[in-house]
């Protein structure tokens, strides 16, 4: 006979909703949209249809400023807020590498969880225990990568 569903994992919620995540959710950094951005893109979560719109200003190859908009869950808001801080001064290849590292963190990779390159993002490590929420955490990063890969599109 198949086993009943897994009992709730103790501590998973505490790991997910750490104070740092909630702080970013309550007071997000760089929320809104930049005037006359050099690049912009929107990424939608196919599961819920919610979207994060990112606007970017560049200084040559490097990002000088990022803002995000969208009323989404705490996980994606915190990830977006942290992203706007971390992205400053980085190039597209560096953003792609960081997004890959974040994906490893979200899958529970221990080395990623200790990687200083991820900065505050390490607080998102608890998502690994609730994999249904991984798409929320990567949503803003998809938008940022798309923006950098594209010509400037109409700003929503």
């Amino acid at each position: 006979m198949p086993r009943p569903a897994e009992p709730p994992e103790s501590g998973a919620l505490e790991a997910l909703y750490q104070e740092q995540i909630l702080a970013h959710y309550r007071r997000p950094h760089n929320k809104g949209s930049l005037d006359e951005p050099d690049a912009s893109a929107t990424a939608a979560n196919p599961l819920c249809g919610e979207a994060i719109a990112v606007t970017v200003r560049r200084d040559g190859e490097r990002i000088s400023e990022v803002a995000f908009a969208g009323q989404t869950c705490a996980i994606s808001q915190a990830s977006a807020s942290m992203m706007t801080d971390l992205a400053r001064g980085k190039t597209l290849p560096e953003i792609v590498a960081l997004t890959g590292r974040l994906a490893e963190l979200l899958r529970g990779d221990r080395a990623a969880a200790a990687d200083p390159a991820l900065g505050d993002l390490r607080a998102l490590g608890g998502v690994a225990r609730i994999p249904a929420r991984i798409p929320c955490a990567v949503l803003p990063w998809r938008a940022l990568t798309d923006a950098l890969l594209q010509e400037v599109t109409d700003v929503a």
Partner: protein
Amino acid sequence: MSRRTDFPLLVRNPGMHYLDSAATAQKPRVVLDALRTFYETAYANPHRGSYALSMRATDAYHAARERIARFAGAVDSTGVIFTRGTTEAINLLATAWGRAAVGPGDEIVVTRLEHHSNFVPWQQLALAQGAAFRIAELTPDGDIDLDRLRRIVTPRTKVVAVAHVSNVLGAEIPLQEITAIARAVGARIVVDGAQGAPHIPVAFDERGIDAYAFSGHKLGGPMGIGVLVARREFLESMPPYQMGGGQIEFVNDDRTTWAPLPNKFEAGTPNVGDAVGLAAAVEYLDGIGMAEVARHARDLSAIAVRELRLVEGVRVFGPPITARCGVVSFTLDGVHPHDLATILDQDGVAIRAGHHCAQPLMRALQVPATARASFAIHNDASDVTALVAGVRKAQAIFGGVGTPAHAAAR
């Protein structure tokens, strides 16, 4: 008496509080048994084989249609067409009837509270045919504004398409009044009964409507089977939706004639097994009595609304308690519905969070998403208690009410 024991999945998951029946209903044992019995005793391709087993499959399919016609209050079972679900039933009408009957300058009317399944097919039909697409707005209480509806329904209106019950607000719409408004101008009236059929008798013949669509899986039947109940004259007025085996009469080199109803609309090998499963599901519901099924869900949603309103920062959407068909949509200040659903899930409480495939309504409610708990015959007061406890827990985790993110959304 708890009917939880009728549902094997819930028996196997004692800690589970399943509050997502509006998305899909859990299956009573009798449905699973009926599926198994069909596959073990009567499985063959119906209509085709000239042997006894194929006849048994044909008979099972026929009996399922008769049983479901009875459930739907349709004397003429040839107007009961099996589809994959509500979505396919509405697409059938919007495509087969719509492309033939709607032209430039005509008008199509839907309401603000439609599920995308009863919105997008009509919107796209209007765009393709050069017709006007009109949306009947709601009153501030979330009811369909009948005065405004009367103003947008005109002699050019070809169809009024409405949900019997909103999957977000849980309200039963005033179908009788809306039918009269549509009839007065000679428009077709099409009803999306995905949320209606599980709670309100379909009573097709009594309603004077042209078509009623519902999904088997929301009634406790299998996924992949649904029903379009329609007037014979309506179905005969339109060309087939899909063409192929089983739905033809004669195929000449240069033209084809169609099989009589219902076969005309059922191209390809039919989904006999799931039709049999759905027949068992409606037998189960009729055995309890639809009045009791509805009362049970309404009582539990009333308790849930009352208890949730006691939590500071909770906002409940939708109609007064008495008009609620087992659906409670709400938000909690400072906590996004997705986070709420994750927190509830940790305690075995399954609810839906999101826009519920009703983005036009979400825009009117001015929220990006809601949390939705929905109740069925197997739920009891302990499910409500677990829901409310989880909401309070989410509030504690997020540290109180009124964060800027959500204050802005109100």
